[in-house]
């Protein structure tokens, strides 16, 4: 299927859920969707377009929290990124691990680094941070302050 066909079908199928559609270059497309429809979109893109999941990026924009899911469709050399915007105080979204095993670890990482809650994840434990890292302190947020007075700091001379 050629690229324009694929994008047209995605737009038609999810016309109620797509908020913004940015066709940047022949290889990169950025689509913003509503958070409630993430499971449906992921199901569609995996089963009917045979895409591969690359990774999910979570970031802390100033007034909201964003997650971007990246998928590659290899036959037409297209990388589609789905963006969801979440509330900053209590970010919460459905987990896609039940349909896609490859997303297990990255959701654990996003949970401990930015405090995003994934509803329905089978095994939410710490992935990268130490066991004695305190709860509630999320390193990748903009307002993260260094909290450990006793840590050894090497500022260089």
């Amino acid at each position, binding site marked *: 299927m050629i690229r324009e066909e694929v994008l047209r079908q995605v737009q038609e199928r999810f016309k109620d859920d797509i908020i913004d559609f940015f066709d940047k270059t022949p*290889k990169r497309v*950025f689509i913003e969707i509503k958070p409630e429809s993430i499971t449906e979109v992921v199901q569609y893109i995996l089963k009917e377009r045979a895409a591969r999941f690359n990774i999910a990026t979570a*970031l802390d924009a100033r007034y909201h929290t964003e997650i971007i899911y*990246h998928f590659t469709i290899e036959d037409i050399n297209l990388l589609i990124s789905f963006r969801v915007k979440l509330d900053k105080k209590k970010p919460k979204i459905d987990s896609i691990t039940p349909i896609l*095993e490859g997303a297990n*670890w990255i959701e654990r990482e996003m949970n401990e680094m930015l405090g995003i809650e994934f509803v329905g994840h089978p095994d939410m434990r710490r992935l990268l941070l130490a066991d004695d890292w305190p709860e509630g302190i999320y390193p*990748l947020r903009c307002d993260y302050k260094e909290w450990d007075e006793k840590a050894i700091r090497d500022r260089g001379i």
Partner: protein
Amino acid sequence: MSKTIVPIGPYHPLQEEPEFFTLTVEGEKVVDIDVRIGYNHRGIEKLSERKSFDQSTFVIERICGICSTSHPFAYTQAVEDVIPVEVPERAQYIRTVIGEAERIHSHLLWLGLAGHFLGYNTVYMWAWKIREEVLDIMEILSGNRNNYAMFKPGGVRRDFRSEDIPLVLKKLDSIVPTLEMLLKAVTDDPVFHARTKGVGILTKQAAIDFCALGPTSRASGVERDVRKDAPYAAYDKVDWKMITTQNGDVFDKVVVRILEKLESVKIIKQCLNHLPEGEIDLNIADIPPGEGIGVHEAPRGETFHYVRSDGTNRPVRHKVRAPTFMNLPTYKATVVGERIADATIILAAIDPCYCCTERMSVRDTHRKKLYNGEDLIRLSQERTEKLRGKYQK
């Protein structure tokens, strides 16, 4: 039968980098595995937010010592994708040569370690001996054996001199006979077959479900290679083949990596013979607001970098995803059901780079014994000795 838990790690000579694996065993068979990573977490994504785009490249290079080119390669492509802009042709060829030379040295390092774990120390010595030739090539071309500092957003930092190229081609030609000898030594030895054929099989469906990458997925029959699917740099201008096999066991992973080295030698020779003239750097001044994604086929799989910029000289967000992050969870599918003496070679077969990702241990609570890495390597080597005795009767 009661279950015993065998921890491997976090710090022991089995793996080059720390990780914590917990294998649950019943007698000799492994029934479950749990992986804990994070011992090498250095907060590089947070560091990138405080450095300018150009300074970041030096930090990104030091994410990993073995695959030191793959991260800057993907990062510079991500920054160029924000604008978006294409680098000059000579810079693309230079980048390809450095990327492929790194693939050869990384696969040779892995081949030596796999030989060591199985008890073939001669393979270990030979592989690392010809690896020295490849590191000499890197030193002639870039000035250093690791951490080459050749990449920058917009091109490359240093140029190749035309008087160096004949010496480099001669060194490349000198390693090809040894590579072919190693391939024959591996495929003809019956004890090697007994240790690696049918061991640690990753089925094609499991490779697709876990989103496995690199030689781990190509050995299972999934044809995935970023250099062919989404060509970048000079990969669509030279002639080479993608190597795939069907079975997905450890033997196939060894064969895929050796054949890929021979293809890399072909790519480097074609690039050096047809190196175009021209500029090597675009001298990018400002990065506009936007997002960019860069991918590169590292020796272990696809490296993915995402950069978001808001018009200042620093990234707002830089996401790094190494290929081992997607390959490590496949242990659930490959190690479970195998015997404990094979655990080391199966764990090493995906070529884990924990610095890029993050270590394991085996605890036998029933017999109150603690196996560390040396014990597991010794168990693996003893099994080879037993099999060798059987074949030489």
